[in-house]
């Protein structure tokens, strides 16, 4: 085999951390990793947050974010050890030989400059192409990546195109200087699933047509299976498993990889509705103050005691607005909310303490939903005091009970949020909601910010708690795998309307309406060739029409 394009040997990466109340010290993030990328091949780097995958990707450009430093090992690009190169050579490498596509194109484009200027900048600056050639190249790439009006879209500013389009522009930016290697750092993670599939297709075709090699970084094994030739699984800065994509997906050797492949294996049988609904949303139409259009149109859903209603939709579909209406934060223009047999005041100020107690909420960002200066005991104890007037030993006993329920245990009572992991923080938020002994909890994207295995644990815990406490969940999410795992009934929302509503099995079985079909077929499946299949199907359908 010829000399690889990128050869990494014994790569060690460290950083200086400044924990509050302690002396700054150095920690290791990556503890010696080896891998090769051949010309024109794609290596997928996969792992949960903190596994060091982005850090490794950026190391191939000799770049460290913040205080991150490469502390040892060799990184060979095109036969040169870039660790031994001077700053001038590294600048030629960056943007010339190796380019980068970030997770958030919206943040990675300069808001003050036209897209075209940013796309051609590296190619021109590295003397790869003249300005004119680079612009022509960019337009060809815009066209290839399926952007509308490829001749003129570059003259727009970043805020004038959509998120999915901007992510494709970022890919054009990376491909424009004709690099040898592109580092894709979670390029589709921030997108809706129906947008993700388009961008994924565009990226895959662009890689194939230009023959560029790539490092594809993601936490989503199903996505990486579609674009990679090889996969390296990382955990805590160590290599867990490294091999061809077929082997990793179909015959994983390591326990951790097996867990990643089989994640979302929760088998939850749909429960039939029984008794009177605990929540009835009746003909809700709502708009935000000062705007001229409705974000919710005549929404009707019911939620039965001890059950889970999943509200699923893409960003902008109105699912979080629905939660705001139910909690009273946004009084609707029309319609009413019935809760536990009574009609709730549309306005938060008009609700009784009992209404507030029985309807609790858990948020996406557990971090910001807790006061960082309060201990776990104080955070969970607050609703106990507030709603039940508990004090002293009685309160402490109940806090410990709740901590046991969320599988954390008594010794967490004096810890601060900063000392907890992401999953533990979300558990504390769940305990805080349960402390009020609610009839219903609104869960707003509660697992979206968590790694797959951790999210899985949270979902299992929620199901288990539902059995014990007989609490109903209104579960807002954009993730269909989560919906399958947890729901009894489903409402699919699109542009402020309920597109499809019913029991889980009914909603997820054909015949589908067009939108639900698009949504379901866009969810990446963990098997090889899935993306090609979907592309082929859609081309056939559009040809048939």
């Amino acid at each position: 085999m010829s000399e690889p394009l990128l050869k990494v040997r014994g790569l060690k990466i460290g950083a200086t951390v400044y924990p509050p109340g302690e002396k700054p010290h150095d920690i290791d993030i990556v503890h010696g990793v080896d891998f090769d990328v051949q010309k024109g091949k794609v290596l997928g780097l996969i792992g949960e947050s903190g596994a060091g995958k982005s850090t490794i990707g950026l190391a191939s450009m000799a770049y460290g974010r913040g205080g991150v430093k490469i502390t040892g090992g060799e990184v060979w690009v095109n036969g040169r050890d870039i660790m031994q190169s001077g700053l001038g050579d590294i600048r030629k490498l960056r943007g010339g030989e190796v380019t980068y596509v970030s997770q958030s194109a919206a943040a990675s484009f300069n808001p003050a400059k036209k897209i075209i200027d940013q796309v051609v900048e590296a190619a021109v600056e590295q003397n790869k192409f003249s300005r004119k050639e680079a612009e022509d190249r960019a337009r060809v790439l815009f066209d290839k990546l399926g952007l509308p009006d490829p001749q003129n879209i570059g003259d727009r500013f970043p805020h004038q195109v959509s998120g999915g389009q901007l992510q494709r522009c970022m890919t054009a930016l990376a491909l424009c200087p004709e690099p040898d290697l592109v580092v894709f750092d979670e390029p589709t993670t921030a997108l809706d699933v129906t947008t993700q599939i388009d961008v994924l297709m565009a990226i895959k075709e662009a890689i194939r047509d230009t023959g560029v090699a790539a490092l594809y970084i993601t936490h989503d094994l199903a996505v990486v299976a579609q674009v990679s030739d090889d996969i390296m699984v990382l955990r805590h800065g160590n290599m867990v498993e490294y091999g061809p994509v077929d082997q990793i997906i179909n015959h994983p050797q390591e326990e951790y990889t097996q867990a990643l492949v089989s994640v979302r294996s929760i088998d939850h049988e749909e429960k039939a509705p029984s008794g009177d609904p605990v929540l009835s949303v009746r003909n809700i139409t709502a708009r935000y103050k000062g705007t001229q259009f409705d974000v919710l149109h005549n929404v009707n859903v019911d939620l039965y005691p001890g059950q889970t209603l999943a509200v699923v939709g893409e960003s902008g579909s109105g699912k979080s607005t629905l939660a705001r209406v139910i909690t009273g934060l946004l009084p609707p223009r029309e319609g009413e909310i019935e809760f536990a047999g009574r009609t709730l005041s549309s306005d938060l100020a008009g609700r009784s303490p009992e209404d507030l107690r029985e309807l609790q909420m858990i948020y996406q960002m557990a971090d910001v939903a807790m006061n960082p200066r309060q201990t776990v005991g104080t955070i969970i104890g607050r609703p106990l005091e507030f709603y039940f007037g508990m004090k002293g030993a009685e309160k402490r006993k109940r806090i410990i009970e709740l901590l046991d329920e969320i599988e954390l245990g008594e010794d967490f009572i004096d810890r601060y949020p900063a000392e907890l992991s992401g999953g533990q923080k979300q558990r504390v938020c769940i305990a805080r909601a349960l402390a009020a002994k609610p009839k219903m909890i609104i869960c707003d994207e509660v697992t979206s910010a968590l790694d797959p295995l951790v999210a899985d644990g949270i979902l299992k815990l929620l199901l288990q708690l539902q059995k014990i406490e007989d609490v109903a969940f209104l579960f807002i999410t954009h993730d269909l795998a989560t919906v399958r795992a947890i729901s009894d009934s489903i409402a699919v929302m699109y542009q402020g309307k309920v597109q499809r509503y019913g029991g889980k099995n009914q909603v997820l079985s054909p015949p589908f309406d067009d939108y639900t079909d698009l949504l379901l077929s866009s969810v990446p499946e963990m098997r090889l060739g899935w993306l090609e299949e979907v592309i082929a199907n859609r081309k056939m359908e559009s040809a048939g029409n």
Partner: protein
Amino acid sequence: MPLIVKLLAQRIALGLILLLLVSGLIFVGTMILPGDVAQSILGQSATPEALENLRAELGLNDPPLQRYIQWLGGAMTGDLGTALTSGADITASIAKRLSNTLFLAFWAAIIAVPLAIFLGLLAVRFKDRWPDKLISAVTLASISIPEFLIGYVLMYLIAVKLRWFPSVAMINDSMSLGDKLSAIALPVTVLTLVVLAHMMRMTRAAILNVMQSAYIETAELKGLNGFQVIFRHAFPNAIAPIVNVVMLNLAYLVVGVVVIEVVFVYPGMGQYLVDHVSKRDVPVVQACGLIFAAVYIGLNMVADVVAILSNPRLRHPK
């Protein structure tokens, strides 16, 4: 109407309303000052009849509202009245003084603004290294020392010991531009030192703030060098806060130079104002106040307009 036009119109209208309110405040403020112009013109030995006649002649007995409207109407047509003490036309004397003040402010700004922004960029480029620390230390020291002290120290060193520039900044129309510049070299230096630190530190902070953005990382990963990243990618996004602090300091150069003008005996607005405050010449004080307010409000309005125009989301709506 496009949003940007609406915002600009709103901002300009707000500036005009503010100026109107301030004119009322100036008028009321000078009204409630103790003392009596007639008394100070005629002296302690004046007879009550003479005082009364003079007051009637000066229009001091008219109702305040009428006098305010007369004054404001005059001011808007360029007639600021006549000085009570000398009987000279205020508009004519102020025009001369104001042009001198603007001349001084202009040259101070020409030096200070580019220098401050350049030093700010330099400090960002070498953040936390010795150039950054040196620039911060020197500019902070210069802003911490009272300006009159810097003025006298420079006068002693440069004018008296080295004899490079004159210590008194007297200028008149018959001087050539070179002579004038030589005359104002010292006050310009002092003013530059006074306004430099504020603008430089704000430039540094605004750009450092932008340097945290993800698009700066994108620029670095394109292989651009430090100055290219700062100039092309950071600076355009830091214009609004920088222009804001530049305008505040330009306003200071016009309205805040009283002390420097007195120290260097420069024939500008500041000296003129100080002279007439001590003589209780109310119309002159009012006129100076109004002009200072107009300069201040006007420059801040310019800063806001630039901030609105520098926002690509407003310039290029979806």
